Each structure stands twice: as structure tokens, then as C-alpha cells.
């Protein structure tokens, strides 16, 4: 079963005629994802990859193809508008890959989405994959294997690292969700962890966090109270100097808040096994499973 995406997902790609949008739309299709439409304003009527119709607006794409998920590759200046367009058209799952969206734009998007039916993953994220069923994002599909471990992370390449280690040890993944590195994002660690907890096909989880914010602490507190499945975690940025923004807009330690040490302490208190290094993520989960 897995979470969020599966064989029934009907995908739209916003920004499909762009270089990155086209490349990744093709790669998702080759993986087996059911791509049904593309949108690029003023390019309506074109056909992508000989069979996928391109529309001017999401509203038309939804009406004519029944797409229920969208992957956004629109440039940062226009991406907030594209998210809102998808919300307006009733797209259930919105995955925004675009990085560099102004924080104030995302603040307005988030406020406008409150109480609505759409779920946003990202922005500035690698996307989401249910191995063997559906890939919506920029991750290399071949490293994944169908299985029982859920992975949630702010960082793309660290997610691939964890997946690589799991697959190499014979453990497949139920679903891997990249929630993105921005300070304001649509879906949090906690939201994903709750879905994994409710998913019968997910038997264990790896949670990958970064310095900055308090999302990892919130997930840890909830897990301690509600989750019996084994969980391992890694926090990146233990050696990052305070006050400097390490790439991701969210990855900054300021005023003593959001430190790796604080997050690790909160996770340990929730009986979560800590990966000491990024090479130790899968092994940490195996240690936790062994003592479950």
C-alpha cells in the first residue's frame, strides 16, 4: 500500500517544456509513473514525448485528464503562483521541486492552503517515490527497492544515501518522502511520520533531519507517545558553525536554537536510534530493529 503515491496516481508536470521538467518527466515515465498531462502557459496544444498532452492551465489539465498529483518545475519567481494554481484546481498532492522560492511567497501559500484539501510536499525537495510503483521527483529510481522501510528527509542526496545503504543490506522501502530544505514547507517530518505509523506496509522508519528549526523535536515527541515501530535518525550539521546558512535556507543555527545536539537528545529520549555518521543510517535502523 505505502503512502501518498502508488500505481493509481495520475501525474501532471507543471513546467514540462523546460529542460529539467522535461528530463525528469521522462525519467518518471520510464520508471512506470502514470504521467497524464503537462502544463506550460502559452504552450497548450503541444504534445510531450509523442503522447502526453500539454495544456495552458492546470484547470484544463485537471478537467481533461483527471490528474490527481502534480510535480512542479517552474522557476522560483513563478513557483508560488503555480502551487496556488494547483490548489485552485483541486489537485490532491502537489510536489514542488523548485528551489529558491522567496520565504514570504511561501508564507502566503501556506496561509492560503490552511484548511484546504491539497497537500504540498516541498518546495526545494527531491520528491517522493513508492519503489516499484510510482516515482515523482528527481531521485535516481534504480537505487530503490520495494520493501517495508519508510524514509523521510529534508535533504535529497542524504535520502539517496540512506536508500542506498538500505537496499545494499537487503531492506527495501515502502515510500521515501523528501520534504525539502526550506524554512517553510508544506509537509513536515511529523506529518509523514504519522502516515508511516498508520501504514500497515511500513514496519520501520528512517528520519533524516538537519540543524535549524524544531521539526525533528516535534516528530520525536509524537513518536515517543504514539509509535511502536522501530525508528532511526540522522541529523546533519553537527559541525556547522552557528549563524551561517548551510545551503538550505532552513539549515542555520541561531541563538542556540536548532542545534544538532538538542535534536539528537530529543530523538534519543524518544527511543530512536541515532546514526552517528551519514554512513551509519541503515545500520542504526538494523540495531534498533534488533532490540525491538
Amino acid at each position, binding site marked *: 500500500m505505502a503512502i501518498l503515491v502508488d500505481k493509481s496516481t495520475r501525474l501532471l508536470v507543471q513546467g514540462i517544456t523546460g529542460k529539467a521538467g522535461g528530463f525528469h518527466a521522462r525519467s518518471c515515465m520510464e520508471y512506470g509513473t502514470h504521467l497524464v498531462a503537462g502544463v506550460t502557459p502559452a504552450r497548450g496544444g503541444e504534445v510531450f514525448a509523442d503522447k502526453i498532452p500539454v495544456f495552458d492551465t492546470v484547470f484544463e489539465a485537471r478537467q481533461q485528464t483527471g490528474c490527481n498529483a502534480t510535480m512542479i518545475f517552474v522557476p522560483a519567481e513563478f513557483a508560488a503562483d503555480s502551487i496556488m494554481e494547483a490548489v485552485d484546481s483541486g489537485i490532491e498532492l502537489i510536489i514542488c521541486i523548485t528551489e529558491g522560492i*522567496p520565504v514570504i511567497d511561501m*508564507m502566503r501559500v501556506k*496561509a492560503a492552503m490552511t484548511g484546504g484539501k491539497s497537500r504540498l510536499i516541498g518546495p526545494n525537495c527531491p520528491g517522493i517515490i513508492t519503489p516499484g510503483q510510482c516515482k515523482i521527483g528527481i531521485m535516481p529510481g534504480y537505487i530503490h527497492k520495494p520493501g517495508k522501510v519508510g524514509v523521510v528527509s529534508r*535533504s535529497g542526496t542524504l535520502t539517496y544515501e540512506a536508500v542506498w545503504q538500505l537496499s545494499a543490506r537487503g531492506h527495501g522501502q515502502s515510500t521515501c518522502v523528501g520534504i525539502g530544505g526550506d524554512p517553510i514547507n508544506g509537509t513536515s517530518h511529523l506529518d509523514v511520520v504519522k502516515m508511516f505509523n498508520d501504514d500497515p506496509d511500513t514496519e520501520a522508519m528512517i528520519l533524516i533531519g538537519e540543524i535549524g528549526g524544531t521539526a525533528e523535536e516535534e516528530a520525536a515527541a509524537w513518536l515517543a507517545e504514539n509509535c511502536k515501530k522501530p525508528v532511526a535518525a540522522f541529523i*546533519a*550539521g553537527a559541525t556547522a558553525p552557528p549563524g551561517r546558512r548551510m545551503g538550505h535556507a532552513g539549515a542555520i543555527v541561531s541563538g542556540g536554537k536548532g542545534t544538532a545536539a538538542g535534536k539528537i537528545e530529543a530523538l534519543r529520549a524518544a527511543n530512536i536510534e541515532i546514526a552517528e555518521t551519514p*554512513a551509519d543510517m541503515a545500520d542504526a535502523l538494523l540495531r534498533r530493529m534488533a532490540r525491538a
Partner: protein
Amino acid sequence: MNIHEYQAKELLDKFGVPNSPGGVASTPEQAEKVARSLGTNNLVVKSQIHAGGRGKGTFTSGFQGGVHLCKTANQVRDIAEQMLGKTLVTHQTGPEGRVVRKVLVSKSVEIARELYFAILIDRATSIPMIVASTEGGVDIESVAATTPEKIIRMSVDPLYGLLPYQTRKLAKLLGMTSTEMRLACKLFAGLYKLFIRSDCSMVEVNPLVVTKGGEVLALDSKINFDDNALFRHPDILAYRDIEEENPREVEASKFNLNYIGLDGNIACLVNGAGLAMATMDIIKHHGGEPANFLDVGGGATEQQVTEAFKILISDKRVKAILVNIFGGIMKCDIIAQGIINAVRAVNLPVPLVVRLEGTNVEAGRKLLNDSKLPLLAATDIADAAKKVVAAVK
């Protein structure tokens, strides 16, 4: 991006936020002229550098203090003479210090009360939050730690903005009289407008002062911007002062590379911010010290990788380089070609450890092997860290 105090003052003026009158000067004569135009005998001269602790700093000439109170315009000129073109060392500049190219001359005010006022985006709720306190002029973190009840927090609905009643409530919570409140409401509204319209990540006024004459002024302001939004603010981008930045960081920014200089001797070239941080962590875990954070991003070109290499080896402290790439958007063969070209172009002076994994990894490894370059291949991230740490020992 950081800006100078005099630039922050220009923004405050633009948004109608009252602050102490003054002007910027690049020569002692200009400083004197600004002082005369202010028509007061209570003056202050401040060195303009991107670092804190200026008041307690020392110039390499031996002159004490980067901030001075003056009584006459002639005195302002003499003090400016001691500062301009000289190097100021503070606890934040490091021993090399920073050259003072401009001074801000302003009216010094008589302070009755010092308060604190800041606007930022609260990550937990994803909306703007105002943080204020009656305890201004001191480190707000220590106020929050010792007397948390003295910290006022107020959320702002991003779709409505800061409402007039909220500004009145804030003024009252800060212990203001009716007259002071009227002035403060205008100041708070102006700051919020500045925050939103300029895409700030934080505006901090410390201290916000009530003067003995009953004015309410933003005496010292720190403004940070959301780098992602600078594309729509050419006026703010023009405030960038490249002289104040690490030259390698400036060079990296020209090629859209995300580089941050650190103090160690192991350079890293990584794709993805999370993996770049984690690579620094694992180097340290195995007993090494990273020389930098460098994220070459999701769609780096061969030219970007070549430039990244040049930047890394321009740091003479670097004794070894670790390349750690897990390819998603970024294809391993592109990275490999970039490494080969860069190594050939610059005649690499230090050992290189390469770890590639992901899209087109076989093609990438083949390119590296066929190149006959002297590099150490690593099988995984732990192996890579161990090999690079061993290389500098």
C-alpha cells in the same frame, strides 16, 4: 546578505521609521560637513564594517574604539581621520580586521529607556512574529534565558498584516505613555512594511529607545534579507559590499556555487546541502577538519565544477580534497569530466579522494579510471572520509 548600518538607516528613512538623524562620509571633510548640518553638539562617529563589537575594537594603528562621541564638528573630522582607511579589529573580525571605508556621523540622543523590538518569520507557525521586550540594549538571548516573562511575542496574520490595534497593544506592553504610543505605532507599522516589502528574514531594533525629549527612535537596527528574494530587489542588491566578504565566497557566488569557508585543511566538493553538511560531520568524526562547505547544487555544469576546484585549491591551508557526489539531478559522468578538466587545468597540488554514486555512475567511474589521474577512489562515504583524513596525517 549583510548590509552596513548606514544602509539600514537609508531603508528606515525610506519606510518612515524614525531614527537618529545623520549621514555617511568617506572622507574626514565629508564627516565634518555632515556634523555641521546636524546642528547639534551631541555627535557620534561610527566605523562602518560588517562586524559587531566596534565600540570595543582597536585599530591596527593603535587608536582605540570604532565608535566615538564628539562635541564639535572639528572633533568629528579628527576622529574620522583616525578611522577612515585604517583597519579595525573587533572580536568578530578575526585578527586580520577590516578596513573602514565609511563612517556614519549622527546625532547622539539622550536615552530615557532602552527597549527591544524584532520581526522575524516563526518557523514553527510559518508566519511573521514580533518579539519585543522592555529589556533593550542588552543581549536578548540572555534576557530570554534568565527572565523569559520579559519577552513579548505576537503573531501577525500574513494575509492581514500588522493591524493598528496590535501596534497599540505592543506599545502598552512595552510600558509606553499615550503620547509615546502614538509615535511607537507609526514606527512599528513602518518596520513591518519594511520587513514585508523588502523580503527581510529579520529586522531587529536593539535598542529601540525612548529619549529624554519623549521621542521614540530605532537607534540601532540589524536587517537581514532572504537571499532567495533578492532578484526582485535590485536596490537592496546594490547595497552588497564585496570588500566585506570572503574572496572565495565572492568567487563562488559568481558561478552560483554555495561555498562557505571554514578553518580546517580538508576541502570538500559535494552535491546537495544536506550531504555537504553530513560530509563535514563525517570528516570531523574521523578526526579531520573541513576547510569549507561547498554545495555544487542539483544541476551543476562542467564549468561550475572546474571553477569549484579552482576555488578550493586557492585556499593554501588545504592539504587534501574530498569529492562526494550522490547523483540525482547531477550525473556522475558530468562530475567526473569536471574533475578531470579541473585537475588538468590546475595541476592539483594535493591528494584527491573521489566517491561517486548515482545516475550514470559507471560512465563516471570509467572516465576517472581512463584519465590516469592520481586519485584515490572510495567505495562509500565512510571509506572516503577515512581515506581523506589519512591523506592529511
